[in-house]
């Protein structure tokens, strides 16, 4: 620390620049940021903002490093004794040197992202967007400007609105039209467009209306892995639009063929990005899922679901789950013949709970739809049904239990055989006197799990099913009916209404039997 201080105190600007640069490259933790701030280094760096171009730039980079993600240090930086340091940085966004302007913007973005209350002025935010757009044109810093823009707007709907109003999408697309661009610039623009389209439908609409998706699909086949991944991320965010998914906009060979190819990519981060985009695109509501399957997508997703990398595994299963959503029976057969009951059973019991959750959701979709679909969990000696039952007995994560209960709810909406099979899983005949999982779920603090459990009971006690009376007797003996009585005023409206339905049906079954 003393060494850095001595460097910063030097009369030689190369030496002070070196000191600032050491901070930029070595300060990594909040503790280090605080230690630097406590020794008064911030004041020295602020002084350097008035120095030569080299000093200004070294200081801006160094300040951004010290302030990043640390609201306490930012507060110190903003103290009046620092002589309106924020104003000085703000002034540097108008500097004649493009790199200085960019670094000043990045410093302000760090402050905004780490401590939003410090930079609330709408004009500053708009100004930052406009400066960064202008810097996009610059040969020296044009590659970095879109990344700075991304860090300004990422996950912030209010800033995305401002950027949209500043025509950011049109201007970014204009750059794409000027092409061909070098990889770094292309990657930055695609990431900025992805961030613009992460939340707002109007941004997605604008990008689509500019017919810019052809640039994105072209980028899916670029040599640079970073560009390929950026194109996938852009496509993922644009395809978050249910309106456009419903119009079948993405389920065509222009998107599907290059995306499926990327599932074989050598780079893991490209595969991960492609899986995310595919997960959205296969939701498709127009029954065109066959296109994806004909391109060999299912085969590769199944391969990736067996990956040693758990991130790849969970995303591959999620894509298969979305593909199975409202899909016709023929496609379900094809998915299952590729995946096999055995693999799906293993995925339900995967060591990673996220994989378990997605696998159970996949089974839930598999047994939805026409009644015959339920048979899928009874194949191979009811391997899948037993795997779900085992998970419900042993898992502890609510999300896993919820998906498992919905599998049973869907199966219990079938015929007598299906309903009885669910009863066997929930109330095994050889179980000891310990509390049933159904009772545990009805007592859960998580209203989503209580809802799923009560839906299963609604289906098990469904009045027009012939075995309802016998099941009600079993449920009564297991203490479930009396628990339902306690739930008719559940604080969750959904639970309350279903509990009343299940209880009403239980009473009807009783009456019908006498």
């Amino acid at each position, binding site marked *: 620390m003393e060494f850095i201080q001595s460097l910063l105190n030097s009369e030689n600007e190369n030496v002070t620049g070196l000191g600032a640069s050491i901070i930029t490259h070595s300060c990594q933790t909040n503790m280090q940021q605080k230690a630097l701030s406590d020794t008064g280094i911030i004041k020295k760096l602020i002084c350097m903002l008035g120095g030569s171009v080299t000093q200004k730039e070294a200081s801006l980079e160094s300040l951004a490093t010290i302030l990043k993600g640390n609201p306490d240090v930012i507060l110190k930086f903003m103290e009046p004794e620092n002589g309106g340091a924020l104003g000085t940085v703000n002034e540097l966004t108008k500097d004649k040197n493009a790199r200085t302007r960019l670094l000043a913007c990045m410093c302000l973005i760090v402050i905004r992202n780490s401590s939003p209350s410090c930079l609330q002025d709408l004009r500053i935010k708009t100004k930052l967007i406009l400066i960064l757009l202008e810097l996009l044109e610059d040969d020296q810093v044009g590659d970095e400007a879109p990344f700075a823009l991304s860090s300004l707007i990422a996950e912030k709907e209010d800033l995305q609105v401002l950027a949209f109003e500043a025509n950011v999408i049109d201007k970014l697309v204009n750059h794409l039209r000027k092409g061909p661009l070098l990889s770094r610039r292309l990657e930055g623009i695609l990431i900025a467009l992805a961030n613009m389209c992460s939340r707002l439908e109007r941004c997605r609409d604008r990008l689509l209306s500019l017919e810019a998706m052809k640039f994105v699909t072209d980028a899916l086949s670029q040599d640079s892995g970073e560009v390929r991944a950026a194109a996938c991320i852009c496509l993922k965010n644009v395809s978050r639009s249910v309106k456009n998914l*419903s*119009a079948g906009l993405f389920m065509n060979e222009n998107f599907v063929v290059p995306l499926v190819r990327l599932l074989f990519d050598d780079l893991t981060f490209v595969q991960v990005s492609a899986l995310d985009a595919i997960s959205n695109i296969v*939701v498709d*509501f127009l029954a065109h899922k066959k296109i994806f399957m004909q391109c060999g997508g299912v085969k590769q997703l199944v391969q990736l679901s067996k990956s040693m990398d758990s991130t790849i595994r969970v995303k591959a299963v999620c894509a298969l789950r979305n593909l199975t959503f409202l899909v016709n029976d023929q496609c379900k057969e094809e998915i299952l013949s590729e995946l096999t009951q055995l693999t799906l059973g293993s995925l339900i019991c995967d060591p990673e709970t996220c994989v378990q959750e997605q696998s159970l959701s996949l089974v839930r979709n598999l047994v*939805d739809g*026409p*009644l015959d679909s339920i048979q899928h969990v009874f194949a191979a000696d009811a391997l899948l049904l037993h795997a779900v039952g085992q998970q419900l007995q042993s898992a502890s994560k609510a999300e896993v239990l919820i998906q498992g209960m919905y599998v049973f709810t869907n199966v219990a909406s079938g015929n007598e055989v299906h309903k009885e099979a669910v009863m066997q899983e929930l109330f095994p005949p050889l179980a000891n006197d310990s509390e049933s999982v159904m009772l545990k779920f009805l007592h859960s603090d998580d209203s989503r799990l209580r809802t799923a459990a009560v*839906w299963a009971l609604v289906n098990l006690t469904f009045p027009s099913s012939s075995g309802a009376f016998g099941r009600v007797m079993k449920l009564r003996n297991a203490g479930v009916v009396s628990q339902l009585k306690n739930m008719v005023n559940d604080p*969750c409206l959904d639970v309350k209404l279903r509990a009343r339905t299940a209880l009403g049906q239980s009473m009807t079954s009783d009456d019908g039997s006498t």
Partner: protein
Amino acid sequence: MPVRVVETSSALSHPSGGTSGNTLPSACTLLSVGQAFSGTQNVSSQQKDEAWRVNVRIQGCDLDHGYLCGTMEALNVPMADTPVVTFWEGEIVDTKNYTFFTGKWGATSDDDIKHWTKFPSFSPLLSQVEVDGGKSLDLSNYPYIFMRWKEQYFVNVGTDCGLTIAGFYYVCFSCSDGSINGFYYDPNSSPFQKLELKSTNEGRLGFSFSSYELQ
């Protein structure tokens, strides 16, 4: 989607009043993605009685933004060779994102009140809605969900199919049994065309739920 009568101009775009401080409606599983409904839309006019069979499927739901969307399929439309499918987007009256006052699509607050009062479950809310559009109501535990559904485009036919999607539906959904009642509003169509839908279980002895997760 009634028969086209007169071409109308595009929808106005000023938003309905949003407020803060109220809690959102709790999630209702019967109104979740994948759920299907079927029933009829009465499109009778002074000249003739007519009703179309209608199927609805929920495709997207974002309670935080008071957003719902899906498709509506009209089955026995006289002037169409095939069932006509439209994509609609819904505003959930949650008093945070949207109030009972539409503030667009050519509907005045009088039109709003006239339509909402057609739903018996709306009557306990009427006096407050007349004051502020319902901004101060807490509907988080109310067993009915009020919505506006606006058809956005024809999915499987062209705009020259003889039907119009210029208007929108005032909708009331019952969380208890999943039934849906609605009234179509379009100054150029027969008034108060009634939509009546029930949750369908597609041949099952019970209810089934599918799901997807966007990344």
